[in-house]
């Protein structure tokens, strides 16, 4: 994935779309104040300078799907492991909730289910049937909408053709009004995300930790 920080306006449409697509449980104001809110993608807001010369910086942070993910070797039940496609998979059924992965992740993008999910009626109606609802005690995180990736691959296979670049869009990418988020196949050198990852504006988050993250952040120009 590539994130163009020049285009991001901090509107958080991505956060809302992700929540709806992935059946993320609602924590409520009291639990959120106690730090139990779950947001697989969040927009970090940093203020620089004093009024009136304040500059606001937005940075959407989601799971970086690191190639040398520090969250993977520490999971005792293989709930967190690397797939052949290069995604960091979180298998809810294997998770016993030690939360070691959540501690080891330097980006703090892993979240723990402190309670069973509760949706007041009729809010259970828009739940996405393609995504499992997580029970209490398991860790969850952004999956790059793996259900959409799998659906796209199956569709292409059924139609006997190759996947097109830009055909699969995770919920955040789809909903961003400024097209700041770009998703694609990094193995394909011609895809847009590959081109952006080679951009001179490109940086990686916490690169010196050696986690080999796959999300490229394109710096603001001014």
């Amino acid at each position, binding site marked *: 994935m590539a994130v163009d920080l020049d285009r991001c306006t901090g509107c958080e449409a991505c956060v809302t779309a992700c929540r709806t697509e992935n059946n993320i449980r609602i924590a409520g104001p009291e639990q959120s104040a106690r*730090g139990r809110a779950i947001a697989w993608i969040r927009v970090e807001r*940093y203020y620089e300078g004093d009024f009136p010369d304040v500059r606001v910086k937005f940075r959407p942070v989601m799971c970086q799907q690191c190639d040398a993910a520090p969250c993977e070797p520490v999971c005792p039940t293989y709930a967190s492991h690397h797939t052949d496609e290069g995604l960091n998979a979180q298998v809810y059924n294997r998770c*016993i909730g030690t*939360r070691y992965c959540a501690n080891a992740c330097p980006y703090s993008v892993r979240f723990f289910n*402190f309670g069973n999910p509760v949706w007041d009626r009729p809010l259970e109606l828009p739940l996405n049937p393609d995504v499992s609802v997580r029970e209490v005690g398991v860790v969850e995180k952004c999956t790059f909408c793996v259900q959409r990736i799998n659906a796209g691959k199956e569709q292409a296979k059924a139609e006997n053709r190759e996947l097109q670049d830009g055909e699969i869009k995770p919920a955040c990418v789809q909903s961003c009004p400024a097209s700041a988020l770009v998703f694609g196949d990094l193995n394909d050198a011609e895809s847009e995300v590959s081109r952006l990852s080679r951009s001179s504006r490109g940086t990686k988050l916490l690169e010196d930790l050696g986690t080999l993250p796959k999300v490229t952040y394109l710096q603001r120009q001014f």
Partner: protein
Amino acid sequence: MDLATERKINEDLLRPLRQTSVWFFLLIAGLGIIVLAGVGSWMYQIWNGLAVAGIRWPVFWAFYITNFVFWIGISHAGTLISAILRLVNATWRRPVTRCAEVITVFALMIGAMFPIIHLGRPWLFFWLIPYPSERQIWPNLRSPLAWDFFAISTYLTGSTLFLLLPLIPDFALLRDQMRGWRKRIYAVLALGWQGTTKQWHRLEAAMQIMAIAIVPVAVSVHTIVSFDFSMSSVPMWHSTVFGPYFVAGAIFSGIAALILAMAVLRKALHLEEYLHPVHFQNLGKLLLMMSLLWGYFTFAERLTTWYGNNSAEMAVFWETQTGAYSPLFWTMVFCNFVIPFPLLAIRRLRTITGTVIASSLIVVGMWLERFLIIVPSLATKHLPYAWGAYRPQPVEIMITVATFAAMVLLYALFAKAVPIISIWELKVGGHAQPVLTPEEQEEQRELWKARP
């Protein structure tokens, strides 16, 4: 040793098993209530999920892991006294070995509960055991938590056997001395021990092997517990010194716990003739050495961090030094080093009372040290947007208090069922009174001179 002395030792050390005062029942009842409250809190937590605890994003480990590391640390008491002192033939260890080994076994049992208590889905804890499951998957042996499982199981098995082997001759003694239903139980536990020369030789050889084996296991256990932290890139966790740091801290807290246990037993069971000031003095000297070692490791760790000036690590550093966690940090330094140092270094202050005061402070200080390793680092990780503050909740506090009550309860029940001083090992030492302290020798000399 003449028969009269042997009979006296038997009588003195079996008296706690034969006579029970009403205070004992009150103690057991009180502790039992606290332990039940703790179990109730845990059930409440399982039912309602970990939302009732204080953990949050990003501080996902707090009180329970603090307790885990703390109790595993306390368990190093037995290994040091029983195994290491046995290997170097320090004869003053003889009355103290079983007290220490019992601490080890019970502290390990309590410590091993905490990985289960802190799990999000504790009913699935058995997935850490490598067994051929129908899910066709094994535990991830690269994870420090899997190493924890192997290490703690080995150490628990080893320490329990290390406690039970020298108990066999004492069970035989109990079989002969007790009457009624207790005699039958001890007869089963004694396994038919006679005391033939062959049996004694084999037992001593087995104890020697166990002592040699248990020392590396103990060192590896707390090192592996430290690997739970140092294997991640959390600021101020990813430190190469964690292994030795934790082992030194473990032995430190273990000796302190042992001194406390011995002092209480001496008073409660009237063992003044068997647990002498020289025992407390010797343990006090060891405690002083460990306090210095702890201070050295802490200084080296913090100097390296401060000098390196890594921005993520410095955020954690200042949080503990001058920020939100500084009251706890400075309390810890006082409890672990500043106050115990004169109490243990100056011979006139190194009395039973002095060592008990120092030990109580050290137990508190070491608990704080575990807490301060875990929580400030998690609260102040790499991305500032993800920083958070932790507040303990009643469930966590109740369970913590209940484990201390459980330790005292188990210890009291054990001392009621089994002689807390190893009777045959004491007799082998040749005398009921061990070597006198220099003051006591001086006293004896004066008394001898005063006699016509």
